[in-house]
């Protein structure tokens, strides 16, 4: 999951970046509205955390511009403005959620996770694919109720594939959603991560759920579904 933070407070911005990265998100962060607008239009973000009072262009203007340009990323307004009018203003301008400062970081994580699920039309916090279950709230993966240990990047990869289960994701798309701007990504990084993930799933007794579709990328799919497709 890739997240953009638009927050002018350096301390808060850095803390959010660190916390969200440690939670397994790919995070980009900027300190003003103008750069936030450029980032949001040029990269595909699952969630944008947007402050209201920003230099250059305020958060509401950024938000309404994004919505006018059909940018569908979920937007969480993060602001000190706590009046009902402010909340209504933010939500009616296209925000998906509204969080007032100061906030509990856990709450922010939960809201970001909920917004990320919403982007992929996923309402449950547990995605089950055959014996495989991805627990989004705890960021754990189980095969037949047995937990398997994954690195944050591996978890992010399987979560993204699970949220788009049945739909192929290209390498570029995966890179876009799993790596932040400026990350040094090797050309075979996604392939290597897929290889590692498959190996761990195979070892746990859940082989062949990640399939390669030539020219379309990777897809996470239950084995039964794969057979059905082949039958067709």
């Amino acid at each position, binding site marked *: 999951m890739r997240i953009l933070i638009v927050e002018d407070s350096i301390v808060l911005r850095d803390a959010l970046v660190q916390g969200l990265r440690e939670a397994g998100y790919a995070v980009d962060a900027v300190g003003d509205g103008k750069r936030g607008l450029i980032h949001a239009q040029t990269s595909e973000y699952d969630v944008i955390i947007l402050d209201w*009072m920003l230099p250059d262009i305020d958060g509401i203007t950024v938000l309404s511009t994004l919505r006018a340009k059909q940018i569908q990323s979920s937007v969480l307004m993060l602001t000190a403005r706590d009046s009902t009018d402010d909340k209504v203003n933010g939500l009616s301008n296209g925000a998906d959620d509204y969080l007032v*400062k100061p906030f509990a970081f856990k709450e922010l994580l939960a809201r970001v996770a909920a917004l990320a699920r919403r982007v992929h039309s996923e309402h449950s916090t547990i995605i089950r694919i055959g014996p495989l279950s991805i627990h989004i709230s705890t960021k754990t993966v189980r095969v037949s109720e047995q937990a398997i240990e994954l690195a944050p990047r591996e978890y992010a990869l399987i979560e993204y594939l699970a949220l788009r289960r049945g739909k192929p994701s290209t390498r570029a798309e995966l890179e876009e959603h799993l790596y932040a701007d400026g990350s040094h990504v090797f050309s075979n990084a996604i392939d290597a991560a897929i290889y590692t993930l498959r190996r761990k799933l195979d070892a746990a007794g859940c082989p062949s759920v990640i399939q390669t579709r030539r020219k379309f990328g990777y897809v996470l799919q239950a084995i039964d579904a794969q057979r059905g497709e082949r039958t067709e």
Partner: protein
Amino acid sequence: MTLHARITWILLCTIVPLGVIAALGLYLFVSVTLAAKLDGELFTRSEALTAAIEIKSGNVVFDFDEGNLSQYQISNSKNIQQSAYFEIWQFDNGKPAILLERSPSLGADELFATNLPPPWDGFRDGELSDDVDIRLFSSRVNLETKEQNQDAQSRGLHPSETPGQNHPTVLLIVAVPRMSVDGPLDTLIMGMICAGLVFAIVSGIAVRWSLEKGLAPVHMLSDSVAAIDASNLTTRLDAPNLPIEIAPIQGRINDLLGRIESSLQREKRFSIAVAHELRTPVAELRALLEVAASRPRSVEESHQTMMTALKSIVRLDRLVSALLRLTRIEGGREYATATEIPIGEFVREAIAQVQPMAIVRGIRFNIKSNDDEKIVADPDLIVMALSNLISNAAEYADENSIVEIEITQRDSFIVMRMDNAASSLADVDIERLGESLWRIDSARTYSSHLGMGISLARSALEASDAGFTIHLDKSGVVQFRVEIQFTHAC
């Protein structure tokens, strides 16, 4: 007391005395007119009776004709107004002592000739035994003179040219009931009472109706004002067809509403700014510490977190201290002392403190001042005001520009003027410049300032009784000007 009651009271206090005065005037006029008419009648009767008195063979005789006498017959109780009375008394020893004749209409009554006080000539009021009020006219008739007059008249001579004899003087008293005067006067009083009551009722209705009509615009205005509360302060009164006397009130109320609205807007902006200023560092600290505590950290990481947290706390501390100080000054709890201050020296010290920042931004301070000039003010408050203003200039004046400071004496004041180029400022910024926590950059995080410099300076100067004005000169390069008027230490 309501305006309605007040105007009603004023109108009644004006109308009622006028009505009473008018009624008294009418009463007096009618009374005097009727009395004059009655007195004229009495005089005529007296003249007629006098003509009927004759001296024959030295004796007084009365030659009344039937027409004359019939008026003095028995009292007409049914129509007392037509009755008349007379008595004729002869003088003895200078007093009327011998009753010569009286009208039968008097019956047992007397006209009190013996009790009449001198002089005997004139009009008087009296009363008969049956409570009939009468009007009397008594006159002394010198029968000699009368005879002389008649003689001279018959001979075409003046009375003094005819020799007379020694004839007695009589007192003739004629009276008629006052009914012809009192009756109409009583009727007039009753009429006036009735008219007064009708007038009072009609006046009351007319006053009420007039007030309702006259005060309708006031009620309309009042209703319009009552409909305005804190939720719709943007509403302005626009009552149509207001009288020109009330129209200015509507204008003033609209002006007042405008001031209240802008004041509330200012308060709202201040609340939002305070919320932002206080919540942001708290949010920073909370997020920073929660993320740091979410997993074990190295000593270096923990140290870095603590240093970052400390910076946020220092900023928060500065903000809270500034807000508290502003509150104390504005609440009058920070008392100003008055001592002599060398203003030029204070300004130079304030400039020295911001020199590092000024050098980085290429700002140069040019000060024109007579260092002997002294003002009377509180040194702490003046230091606070000057340091905030000069620090603002160092941070916000256009880069590589000159800040001109001039301290001059003007009348009994010392005026300090500070000009600096500020091309980023607009008129709307000037209006909000004195608001607490306002900064031209709404994000607030790029500046080391709290956005309270001008408001703190303004409050400190106001507490020091110093005049403070700021304005923008847009004739060429936009110039921000601060002018402070201090009390001169003589």
